C-alpha cells in the first residue's frame, strides 16, 4: 500500500510542477505531462517498470475522451460541416497516411507496418492545437475553423483505425507473444462473450450491442439521469456518469469491440440531451487526469539510449514527417481556397503528430503490429514533432502575420455574423422571460438550470436548455463563458448568485453580468460583487401595478404614467448614496440608523415631488407641459410694440 501512495504522489507532483511551467512557456499541457514523465522516468529514475501497467489503466482516458468528443458532436452540426469534414479532414488523413505509408515502404518496411505508421502520422495534436488557438484567439479565423474540422475528422477517424490495426498483426510477433504468454503461469483468459460463438451469432451479438448503446444512450439514459439528478446529490450524478462510460466500455470489451467506439456512440446519442454540459463537466476532470497520466507514462517510457544513438535518424524522421504533413496541408489549403495568412495557419498548425499517435503506437505494439524497438523510435518522433509545434506557432506570429497584416488591415472589417452568446443561469419564472425576449430577437442563448422538471418543460416547447449547476466554473466553461458577451443570473439561491458574480467578474472580466436581485439587500450585495446591471425582481412589476391602481382611481392614464417615471427617476438618483451607506453599515454597524434615515428622506422627497404636481407649476412630473402664466401673451405684445 505504502508503495502505491509514494508512486501516486510522485506522478501527481511531477504533473503539478511540469504542466503549469509548460503552459507558461507556451508549450501546452500535453508537452508538460510528457516532460514530467521524462523527468521522473529516464532522467532521475524514480519510476520504473510499473509504467506499462499504469499505461493500460490510463488508456481509459482515451475512452473517456472519445465519449466527450461524441458529446460535442450534435448530429445536426456534423451534417452542416459534412463537406469540410469529409473534404478537408478526409483528404488530409487519407493523403498523409498514403504518403507516409509509401515512404515507409520505400524505406524497406513491410506494408502492414508501413500502413500503421502512415495512420499514426496522419493524426495531429487536437490538444495542443485547440489550446493554442484559444490562447491566441485564432479559433474564429478561417484557418482556425478549417483546422478544427480536420482535427474533428481525425478524432472520429481514430475509431476505425483502432478497429483496423489489429487486422494488421504480424504472425511472427503474435507467435512470440503467445509462447511468452503460455510460458508465464497464471495468465488468465480474457473475459469474453463471443469467443466460442459461430460467426453469424457473433455478428448478431456485436450489432445488437451497438444498437443497445445507441438506443439506450438516447432513451434509457435520460430517465436514469433525471432520476439521479432529482436526488440533488452531486456525487451520485458523478457516479452515474462514470457508470455509464465504464459500463459501455465493459459491454464493448465483452463483445470484442473497441470500448472507444462504444463510448463515442453513446456520446453522440447524448449530444442533444439536456445533461450534455453536466456530463461534460463531470467526466472532463477524470479524462484530463487519466490522459495526463497516459502522457506521463509515455514520457517515462522514452528510451534515451535510443534517442542518443539514433539522434540524427530521429531528427531526420521528425522533420521529414512534418514536411510531408505540411505539404499535404498546403495543397489542401490551396484546393479549398483558404486565403492568405489563414492558409499558413492551417499548414503550420497541423504539421505535428499528436497524442492519438501515442495511443495508436501503444495499441499497435500490444496487437503485435509494430515491433517494440520501432515503436519506441516512432514515439520519439511523435514527441519531438509535438515539441516543435510551439516553434511553428511562433514562426506564424513573427514571420507570416506581419507579411499579411498590411493587406488584411486595408480590407474593411467583415460584418460580425455571430453574436456573442448569452448564458442564462436559472430559467425559472424570471429567466424564462429574459430568454424569450432574446430568442425572439435571434440572440443565441445557452440556458442552464438545476431543476430537471424545469428543463423538461422548456424542452417540451423547443427551448434548448441544459441541466446543471451554473455556479460551477467547469459547467460555465462547457457552456461557453469564454465566448459569451453576457451572463444573466436569475438563480434563486441568493448567496450562490453573489458568488457567481464574483467568480465571473474575476475570471471572465469581459462578460457583462446582469443579475436579478431578490430584494434591496441582495441587490447591494450583487453590486458589491461587481454585477454590471441589477434589476430587482419585484420593483418594475409592483410599480406597474401601482400605476394601474392610480388609473383605477381615475387619475388620467398619461398622468399615472408620468408619475411612475418620476418615481423611477427619484429612486435612481438616490441609488448611489443608499448603496454607499449600506456598504458602510456592513463595515460598521453604527450606520444602521443612518440608512433608515436616508430611506425616510427619499420617501419624503417622493411625496413632496408628487404633491407638487397639483399645486406648483414647476413640479417635475408635468413640468414640461406647464402652460405659461395667464398674462404672458399680453406681456409679449407689449414688449413687441
Amino acid at each position: 500500500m505504502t508503495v502505491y501512495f509514494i508512486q501516486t504522489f510522485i506522478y501527481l507532483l511531477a504533473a503539478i510542477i511540469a504542466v503549469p511551467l509548460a503552459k507558461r512557456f507556451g508549450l501546452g499541457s500535453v508537452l508538460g505531462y510528457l516532460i514530467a514523465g521524462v523527468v521522473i522516468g529516464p532522467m532521475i529514475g524514480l519510476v520504473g517498470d510499473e509504467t506499462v501497467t499504469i499505461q493500460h489503466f490510463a488508456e481509459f482516458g482515451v475512452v473517456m475522451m472519445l465519449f466527450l468528443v461524441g458529446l460535442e458532436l450534435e448530429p445536426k452540426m456534423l451534417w452542416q460541416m459534412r463537406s469540410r469534414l469529409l473534404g478537408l479532414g478526409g483528404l488530409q488523413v487519407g493523403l498523409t497516411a498514403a504518403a507516409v505509408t509509401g515512404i515507409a515502404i520505400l524505406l524497406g518496411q513491410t506494408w502492414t507496418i508501413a500502413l500503421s505508421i502512415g495512420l499514426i502520422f496522419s493524426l495531429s495534436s487536437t490538444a495542443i492545437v485547440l489550446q493554442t488557438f484559444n490562447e491566441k484567439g485564432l479559433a474564429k479565423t478561417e484557418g482556425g475553423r478549417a483546422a478544427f474540422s480536420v482535427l474533428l475528422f481525425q478524432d472520429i477517424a481514430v475509431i476505425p483505425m483502432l478497429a483496423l490495426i489489429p487486422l494488421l498483426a504480424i504472425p511472427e510477433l503474435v507467435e512470440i507473444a503467445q509462447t511468452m504468454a503460455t510460458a508465464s503461469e497464471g495468465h488468465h483468459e480474457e473475459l469474453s462473450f463471443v469467443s466460442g460463438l459461430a460467426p453469424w451469432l457473433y455478428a448478431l451479438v456485436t450489432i445488437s450491442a451497438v444498437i443497445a448503446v445507441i438506443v439506450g444512450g438516447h432513451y434509457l439514459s435520460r430517465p436514469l439521469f433525471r432520476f439521479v439528478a432529482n436526488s440533488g446529490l452531486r456525487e451520485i450524478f458523478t457516479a452515474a456518469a462514470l457508470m455509464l462510460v465504464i459500463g459501455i466500455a465493459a459491454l464493448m470489451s465483452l463483445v470484442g469491440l473497441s470500448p472507444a467506439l462504444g463510448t463515442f456512440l453513446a456520446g453522440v446519442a447524448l449530444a442533444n440531451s439536456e445533461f450534455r454540459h453536466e456530463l461534460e463537466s463531470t467526466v472532463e476532470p477524470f479524462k484530463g487526469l487519466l490522459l495526463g497520466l497516459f502522457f506521463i507514462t509515455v514520457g517515462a517510457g522514452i528510451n534515451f539510449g535510443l534517442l542518443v544513438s539514433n539522434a540524427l535518424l530521429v531528427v531526420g524522421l521528425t522533420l521529414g514527417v512534418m514536411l510531408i504533413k505540411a505539404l499535404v496541408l498546403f495543397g489542401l489549403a490551396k484546393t479549398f481556397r483558404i486565403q492568405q495568412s489563414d492558409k499558413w495557419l492551417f499548414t503550420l498548425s497541423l504539421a505535428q503528430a499528436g497524442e492519438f499517435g501515442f495511443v495508436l503506437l501503444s495499441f499497435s505494439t500490444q496487437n503485435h503490429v509494430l515491433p517494440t524497438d520501432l515503436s519506441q523510435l516512432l514515439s520519439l518522433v511523435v514527441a519531438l514533432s509535438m515539441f516543435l509545434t510551439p516553434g511553428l506557432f511562433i514562426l506564424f506570429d513573427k514571420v507570416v502575420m506581419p507579411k499579411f497584416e498590411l493587406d488584411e488591415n486595408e480590407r474593411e472589417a467583415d460584418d460580425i455574423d455571430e453574436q456573442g452568446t448569452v448564458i442564462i443561469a436559472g430559467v425559472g419564472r424570471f429567466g424564462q422571460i429574459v430568454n424569450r425576449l432574446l430568442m425572439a430577437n435571434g440572440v443565441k442563448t445557452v440556458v442552464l438550470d438545476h431543476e430537471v422538471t424545469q428543463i423538461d418543460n422548456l424542452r417540451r416547447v423547443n427551448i434548448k436548455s441544459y441541466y446543471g449547476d451554473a455556479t460551477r466554473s467547469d459547467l460555465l466553461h462547457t457552456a461557453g463563458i469564454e465566448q459569451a458577451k453576457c451572463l444573466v443570473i436569475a438563480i434563486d439561491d441568493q448567496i450562490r448568485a453573489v458568488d457567481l458574480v464574483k467568480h465571473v467578474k474575476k475570471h471572465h472580466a469581459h462578460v457583462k453580468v446582469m443579475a436579478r436581485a431578490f430584494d434591496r439587500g441582495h441587490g447591494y450585495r450583487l453590486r458589491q460583487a461587481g454585477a454590471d446591471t441589477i434589476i430587482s425582481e419585484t420593483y418594475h412589476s409592483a410599480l406597474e401595478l401601482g400605476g394601474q391602481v392610480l388609473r383605477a382611481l381615475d387619475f388620467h392614464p398619461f398622468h399615472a404614467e408620468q408619475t411612475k417615471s418620476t418615481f423611477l427617476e427619484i429612486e435612481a438618483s438616490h441609488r448611489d448614496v443608499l448603496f454607499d451607506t449600506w456598504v458602510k453599515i456592513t463595515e460598521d454597524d453604527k450606520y444602521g440608523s443612518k440608512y433608515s434615515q436616508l430611506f425616510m428622506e427619499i420617501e419624503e422627497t417622493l411625496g413632496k415631488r408628487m404633491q407638487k404636481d397639483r399645486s406648483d407649476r414647476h413640479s417635475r412630473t408635468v413640468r414640461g407641459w406647464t402652460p405659461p402664466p395667464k398674462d404672458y401673451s399680453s406681456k409679449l405684445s407689449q414688449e413687441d410694440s
Partner: protein
Amino acid sequence: MQKVLILFAHPSQGRSEVNYPLFEASRHFEGVTVVDLYAEYPNFRIDIDKEQARLIEHDIIVFMFPLYWYSTPSILKEWQDLVFEHGFAYGKDGDQLKGKTFLAAVSTGGSEDAYQTDGYNHFTLRELLHPLEQTAVFTGMKYLPPFALFSARTAVEEDRVQCHIRDWHLVIQALQASCFDHTICDQTETINCVMPKIKSCLEGVCK
C-alpha cells in the same frame, strides 16, 4: 471657435442611408457635440435640466433629422415642447437662447422639384419648416435655411452621400469660424445654394 450642438433624431437608424452616416461623420468634427436623442431617451423621458444646460453651453444649435410628414420626428417635437420653457427660452427672464444660431440638417424623400409651389408638395422646404424658423426667431436665435438633401432614397445609388457629408463639414467649419454673413442666406431656400460663398469664405479664413 463657436461650439456646435447637433441634436440627431432618427427612430430607425438601422435603415438610415443618409442621416446616420452624416451623424457619424459629425461625431468626428472638431468642436461639435452630438446627441442621439432616440438613444438617450428611448422612453421619451427628456431630462429638461440636462438639455437646457447643453443649450447654454453651445452657440450653434442643429436639429438633424429626416423629414417626417413635413416636420421633425416626434422626439424632436417632444424635446421642443419640454426644453423651450417659459422663463428659459421666452417670456420673463427667458433669454437663454438669445444670440445663438439655429439650423436644421434635413433629408427629404421627395425631389427638389416636389418642394415647389407648383410641385406636388406645394410648399418649399423652407416654407414647411416655418414653425422651426419662427421658434428660432421668437427665442432670439439667428435662423439659417435648412441644409438639405432631396431625393434621399436614391442618394446612395447616385453616390451623393459623401459629397453631402463634405459640404456639411464645410458649413460647420464656416459657422464655427464665424466668417459667415448670415444675410446672404436670407433669401435662399437652402443653405446648399450658397455653398460657393461658404467655400470662398473658408478660403479667406485659411489665408
